[in-house]
């Protein structure tokens, strides 16, 4: 958070060095690290996030969850600055309560996807420093994943990773879930829930090995038409 601009080099007379001005800045943001993965299936959606919170080379907490259940059918993960993540989730939960009051039914995931987008863009000039992934079921009951940038640009995907481990996991998902660069890529087969779950676990254990900001524990949310189930697994703590 606290950065300094080094003084510019100048060929001034010796003894005048102490008069250089140094610009001090306080950044309103911090990168708290962490990784998230989500997969959408035929009738399920899985979204997982690790629980380590870091600041530089320090670990702030071994259990600070980054995936938040918003309703019986929607879970959002927020990787980036933890302060903005919790503020955003509080706001979303309140908006969902209003939706329930005004429409007499719980807010469906596609509606929440649009709401999250406009919420993020409303702070276009002082953004929420988070990468969101929203997971749930669409109107037909099929799994859906939406990936966001910090100012609200979003798109529906079948699988996505985000956070500090994104570069390690996304190619793995491309190959194992999207079957890219395999002989099956034009007709990808149906991926059952248990296989997808195993892939998510493997993705996290692998990312934990190489990414210092990922580890401690992973919380996996499984969303089906019967509701939301949570599973927790330990990861390496180093």
């Amino acid at each position, binding site marked *: 958070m606290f950065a300094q601009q080094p003084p510019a080099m100048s060929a001034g007379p010796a003894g005048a060095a102490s008069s250089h001005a140094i610009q001090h800045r306080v950044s309103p943001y911090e990168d708290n690290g962490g990784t998230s993965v989500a997969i959408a299936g035929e009738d399920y959606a899985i979204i997982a996030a690790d629980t380590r919170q870091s600041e530089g080379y320090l670990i702030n907490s071994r259990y600070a969850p980054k995936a938040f259940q918003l309703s019986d059918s929607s879970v959002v993960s927020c990787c980036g600055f933890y302060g903005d993540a919790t503020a955003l989730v509080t706001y979303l939960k*309140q908006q969902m*309560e*209003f939706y329930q*009051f005004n429409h007499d039914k719980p807010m469906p995931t596609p509606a929440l996807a649009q709401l999250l987008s406009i919420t993020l863009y409303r702070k276009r000039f002082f953004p929420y420093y988070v990468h969101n992934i929203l997971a749930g079921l669409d109107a037909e009951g099929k799994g859906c994943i939406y990936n966001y940038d910090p100012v609200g640009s979003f798109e529906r995907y079948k699988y996505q990773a985000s956070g500090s481990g994104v570069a390690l996991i996304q190619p793995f998902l491309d190959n194992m879930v999207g079957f890219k660069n395999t002989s099956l890529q034009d007709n990808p087969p149906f991926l059952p829930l248990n296989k997808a779950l195993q892939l998510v676990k493997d993705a996290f254990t692998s990312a934990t090995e190489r990414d210092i900001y990922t580890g401690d524990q992973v919380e996996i949310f499984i969303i089906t038409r019967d509701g939301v189930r949570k599973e927790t697994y330990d990861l390496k703590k180093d």
Partner: protein
Amino acid sequence: MVRSRCCTNSPSSFRNQYDNDISTFSPHGRLHQIEYALEAVKQGSACVGIKSDRFVVLVALQRQGGELASYQKKVVKLDGHMGISFAGLTSDARVLSNYLRSECMRHKMTFSRPLPTYRASHRYGSRPYGVGFLIAGHDAAGPHLYEFSPAGNCLDYVAHAIGSRAQSARTYLEKHVAEFATSSVADLIRHGLGALRETMPSDKDLTVENVAIAVVGVTENPSDEATIAAFPHMRKEDGFVAFHALSREEVDRHLKAHQQTAGTGAAAAGGDAPAAAAGEAMDTSE
């Protein structure tokens, strides 16, 4: 502001000269605008609230705009632990409900705890709101029932009724007040229906369409099987039953139970009376 001087009916009433403004007192020290707002409450269809040691129950009469119209919804949830029923101007009720809902949310965000019932209060615009509320809530201090009137008064009650012909309902409640503290939820509802029935003309009746019932409170034995079956909304860890309006089937069940006790005039006779009897005009003498 130019006021037209219209002739008054009696020299002692200054109503027409001093009733244009909420902030103008009459020479008798009255604010007529508020009194007129209270009249608006008395025009609305009745609602009844009763509380016991553990629960608060709201029972309200839903008016129908005409044969072809729907029934006016009378029970509004504000938050998990609090809700209202109202009598008076429906549009004012909607405005205030929305305001109270955001107040509940705002308080939860600021203080990380639900809004205590007594903290919900009127806000004022250019005129008083022409609606009275019965607020039912449950917080750390137990169950609460409050009346909010257009006058801005907030009064704590064990049982109360507001709206059209509410005095008849209050008479019923006063008669039975000793029973309420230890009553079960089903008995509170039965008394609420009994009180509400008093406000209706004898040719009309309580039906599943024109009655709304809501409950909030804490059960005594959350692990008891009968309790779990009776309260599907109950939180199992502590027995808290969030504020909710009863479903059509539940309202129907309570109506039938009430009609049996009202019909026989004695203690509940059990389930022998055929379902067809529930639809007939009832003898309401108690």
